[in-house]
């Protein structure tokens, strides 16, 4: 039981959390890409608008993933 109270476990938690956040970001941005490519295939004239919206939404999803990275960093750096 005492091994779980060691500082290294919080480091482990931080790193695993950041990795999970990367998975989440990958899935999210992949879905955005899929939706964007499908939409461009349906209507190639709108591809500029679709591209702009895709990049904007991807930045939002990445922002959320980076919240989790910051939390992981805090878990590692603040002992």
């Amino acid at each position, binding site marked *: 039981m005492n091994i779980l109270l060691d500082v290294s476990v919080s480091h482990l938690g931080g790193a695993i959390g950041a990795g999970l956040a990367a998975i989440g970001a990958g899935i999210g941005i992949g879905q955005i890409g899929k939706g964007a490519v499908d939409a461009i295939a349906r209507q190639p004239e709108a591809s500029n608008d679709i591209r702009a919206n895709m990049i*904007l939404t991807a*930045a939002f999803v*990445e*922002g959320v993933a*980076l*919240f989790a990275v*910051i939390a992981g960093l805090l878990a590692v750096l603040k002992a």
Partner: protein
Amino acid sequence: MQGNWLKSLLVATLGVFFLSLSMTGLANDHGGAEKLDPAKLIMEHIQDAHDFHFFTLQKKDGTEFHATVPLPVIVYSNTKGLSVFSSSQFHHGHSAYNGYHLEEGKIHAEDPNEKIIDLSITKNVVQMLIALTILVVLMVAIANKYKKGQGVQSAPKGWQNAIEPVITFVRDEVAKPNLAGKYQKYLPYLLTVFFFILINNIFGLLPGSANVTGNIAFTIVLGVVSFFVILFSTNKHFWGHIFWYPGVPVVVKLLIMLPVELLGVFTKPFALIVRLFANMVAGHIIILSFITLIFIFGSMNAIAGWGFSPMSVLFAVFIYLIEIMVAFIQAFIFTNLTAVFIGQAFEGEHHEEAHH
């Protein structure tokens, strides 16, 4: 021509800056290479510092040559009063001066009972001042050109060509759709925030510069200012929705919607703060990690270090290109979301269309 005096001003400012390069070759005698600590190395490059450190050369006789520009340290303590001195007196953290010493980039007093307030001109302050100067000088010059009619009745010239599409973009894509009717009042703030974040993002990518937008204090201030702008644009309808959310049972109204909506007022600027900070810091950490990988490989085996460096540089260049895109995107997102929240603050009654 107005472009010329602007160029001369920039050359003069940067010239004075670099002419004060310090040549402290004497202070460092580490006696052999220190053990490579990648985490500390990366953290040093991300955090604020009291000097601009560009590079360090190992001279043949073992001492090091640091190419640094030391910045003034201004410390106020309750016992010693105001002290102003150059940060080169600290000799990169190895010596104490006037009862203060530098530990991990922060100034500590030797006397544990002394309280100090650190008001130094650090890297971030210098970079913000440079960004401020460039922004003010550039925009005032362009505005004067417009006042004289250049670009109004005739084709725009010079910097007007570069800045006009950006300002039109912020006005037509960010301000007008979100702030229908009252966008003129908010356009100065939105444009200032956009350009200030953009310039500091771009500067932060240059090697040796300060990581201003990746500093939580900077983004907190921007977020708090946006928060107050949003607060001052709220109307009765907005607060009515928060305290008495329409269309739900009274129990839900008070127990769930009230805390959620109240929290929502604060979480929106908080998300702005953390989003900008996290994106910039993450980008810098990735670039620094790739470069530090070279040194990690190099400390194991010199050939491995040299052999790995093309890969590392390639990845670093790739990430750099992404970071340039992120610099623009994050400035745009901060501005866009601020505009959206301000718009939400003063929108009136919804037209109850059929939502289903």
